C-alpha cells in the first residue's frame, strides 16, 4: 500500500475518532466550506432534494448542530450522549490528483442514560485535496453520504454524528 493510500485510510479513521472524542470544532474543520453531509431516508435513494432525507446538511447546519450540542439549554443533551464508531478498513474506490472516493463499513453506537442503540451501514466519503493553503495536498471532506442498513425504521433520537 502506498503512503498516499495509508494517509487516506488514516484520515477516515481520524474523522470518526474526532466525533467519538466529541472534538466537534476540529471535526468540522475537516469539511470544505461547500461540504455536504447526507443521510438518505430510503435504502437506495438517489433523489437529493425532492424527497425526504434524514439529513442533508451544509456547513451552516452542521455548525448549528455542534453549537447546539454545547448549549446550556439543550435539554436533550442533559445528560450528554456518547458515541462510538467501529470501522472496517476503508475501501478506496477512486483515487486521483484532486479527488478521492472511499467506502467504509461501520457499526455506530450511541448511548445516553440507560439507552444504547447501534446503527450499521456504509459511509461514502468524497475527499478533496487542498490545492493551496497551509498544507497543499491535505485532505478535506467534500461529501459524506451515510447509508444506514435500516434508514426507514422507526428510530428514536439520533443525536450525534454517524
Amino acid at each position, binding site marked *: 500500500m502506498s503512503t498516499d493510500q495509508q494517509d487516506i485510510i488514516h484520515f477516515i479513521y481520524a474523522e470518526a475518532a474526532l466525533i467519538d472524542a466529541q472534538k466537534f470544532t476540529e471535526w468540522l474543520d475537516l469539511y470544505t466550506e461547500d461540504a455536504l453531509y447526507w*443521510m438518505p*431516508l*430510503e435504502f437506495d435513494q438517489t*433523489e437529493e*432534494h*425532492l*424527497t*425526504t*432525507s*434524514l*439529513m*442533508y446538511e451544509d456547513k*451552516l*447546519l452542521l*455548525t*448549528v*448542530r455542534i*453549537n*447546539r450540542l454545547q*448549549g446550556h*439549554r*439543550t*435539554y*436533550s443533551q442533559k445528560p450528554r450522549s456518547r458515541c462510538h464508531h467501529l470501522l472496517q478498513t476503508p475501501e478506496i474506490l477512486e483515487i486521483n490528483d484532486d479527488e478521492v472516493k472511499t467506502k467504509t463499513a461501520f457499526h455506530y453506537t450511541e448511548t445516553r442514560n440507560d439507552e444504547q442503540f447501534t446503527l450499521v451501514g456504509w459511509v461514502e466519503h468524497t475527499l478533496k485535496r487542498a490545492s493551496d493553503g497551509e498544507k497543499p495536498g491535505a485532505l478535506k471532506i467534500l461529501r459524506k453520504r451515510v447509508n444506514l442498513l435500516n434508514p*426507514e*425504521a*422507526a*428510530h*428514536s*433520537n*439520533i*443525536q450525534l454524528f454517524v
Partner: protein
Amino acid sequence: MGKIDIDGLVRPGGREIHRDVFTDQDIFQQEMKTVFRRTWVYVGHDSQVQNKGDFYTTTIGNQPVIMVRHTDDQIQVLLNRCPHKGVKLVEDTNGSTGKFFRCPYHAWSFKTDGSPLGIPFNKGYEETGFDTSCAKKGMCKVSNVQNYRGFIFARLSDEGESFEDFFTGSLSSIDNMIDRSPEGRLEVVGKPLRYMHKCNWKMLVDNQTDTCHPMIAHESSAGTIKRVWKSVQDETLSKPMVVELVLPFMSSYDDFEKMGIRTWDNGHGHTGVSGSIHSDYSDIDGYYGQMVDAYGKDRAESIMGETRHNTCYFPNMMVKGATQTLRLFIPIAANKTIVESWIFRLVGAPDTFLKRTAMYNRIINAPTSIVGHDDLEMYERAQEGLSVDANPWVNLQRHYREDELGGEQLHPGTSEAQMRNHYVNWARYMSTEDNS
C-alpha cells in the same frame, strides 16, 4: 379490567387531565375499542394505490388494515388477517396484489374487496357447518370508508357520526392544502419519516397546538440557527430556505397570541387563524400566475393567503397545508408512539415547493432533527414525571372560558382550548359502548 371512570379522568371543560390518561395500559386498550373505532381515522392517500390491485398496509388504532384499489377502481379497507387461521395476508407496506389476495399458509384466496374466491381441496368442508362460519365470509371489511378528495378515512365501528357530521368545517384545512395545487391534486412523495417516541400519543397531539413551547423548548435548535445565521450573515446573501423555515419558531408570545386558534366540534382545531409561522415564506417563481390561471385572481389569492399552521384532526392526525405535510401519531402502547411524517407534491406547482416541503420534513420531523430532539426530550420527561403520585394532574387551564367549545369558535393564540377540545371529546368517545 374494571370499568374505567372517565369523569374522574377529565375534569369539566378539559381543564385538568388525570395522568392515567397518559400512562395506564387499560385506558389505552379502551381507547383502541372506542376512540379509534368510533371516529374517522386517516388511513392513507389514494395516490399510494394508483392502479387496480395496488395496496398499502397500515393500522387503525391497533388494527392492521390493507387499503387496496379494487377492480371497480374504488378503494377498500380490509382487516389484514386470513379468515382461516389469522395469518396476516400482506406483509409488505406497498405493492400490487393483482386481482386477488392469496394466503401464504393454505392458499385461501380473496378478491380485493375481501370476498372469498377459493379454498383448495374444499370438499373436506362439506357438511361441517362451514357455510355459516366467520371464515366462509372472507376477509373482514371496513364498511365505512370515505375518499375525501384523495384522503382515505375509515370508521371501524358501525356506530358514530357520519363523515360530514364528524369533520364539519375542519375539512377546510385539507381543502386548502389540496387547493394549493393549481390542478387541485396532491401526490404522496417517498416514504414517511418514522420516529419512535416513548410517550403517550396524546402528548404529541397536545404539542401541535402548544404555542407557548417553541421559543422555550426550541431555543436550543431554532435559537442556535438564529444565532449562527446572524454571525455568518452576509448582507449580499438572501436568507437560506432553511433559515426562513426555522427562524419563525422563535416568534414571541405576543406574536403567537395574535395568530389565534380555531376549534370545531368533535375535537378538531387549528393554530394560525390570522398569520402563522408559515406566513412569511418567499414567493416561488411562476406559481402565482399558475394559480390565477387555475382559479381566478380572487380565489387564488384567498387560497395562497390562508395562514393556517397546524390543524389537528381528532383523534391522531395533523395537517400542515402551507408545507404540505401530514403527521400521524400512531398509538403502540400507553407509553409508546410512532410518529409518521408524510409529504405531498402539489401537482402542477414548481418543484421548489417540494424541495421546501422535503427540507421542512427532515429539519423538523426526523429522528435526526434537532427540533425533534427538543420535543421528544420533553415528552419523555413528561411520561416519566407523571409517575409522581403527589400530583396526578396535567394542567390545561390557559385562557379557559366557559362555553368556549361547541360549533366553530375562536380563541387567543396561546389558549389551550384545542387541547381541552381534544380531551372533552376524548372523554365522550371513551364513554361510548361499541356493539358492532
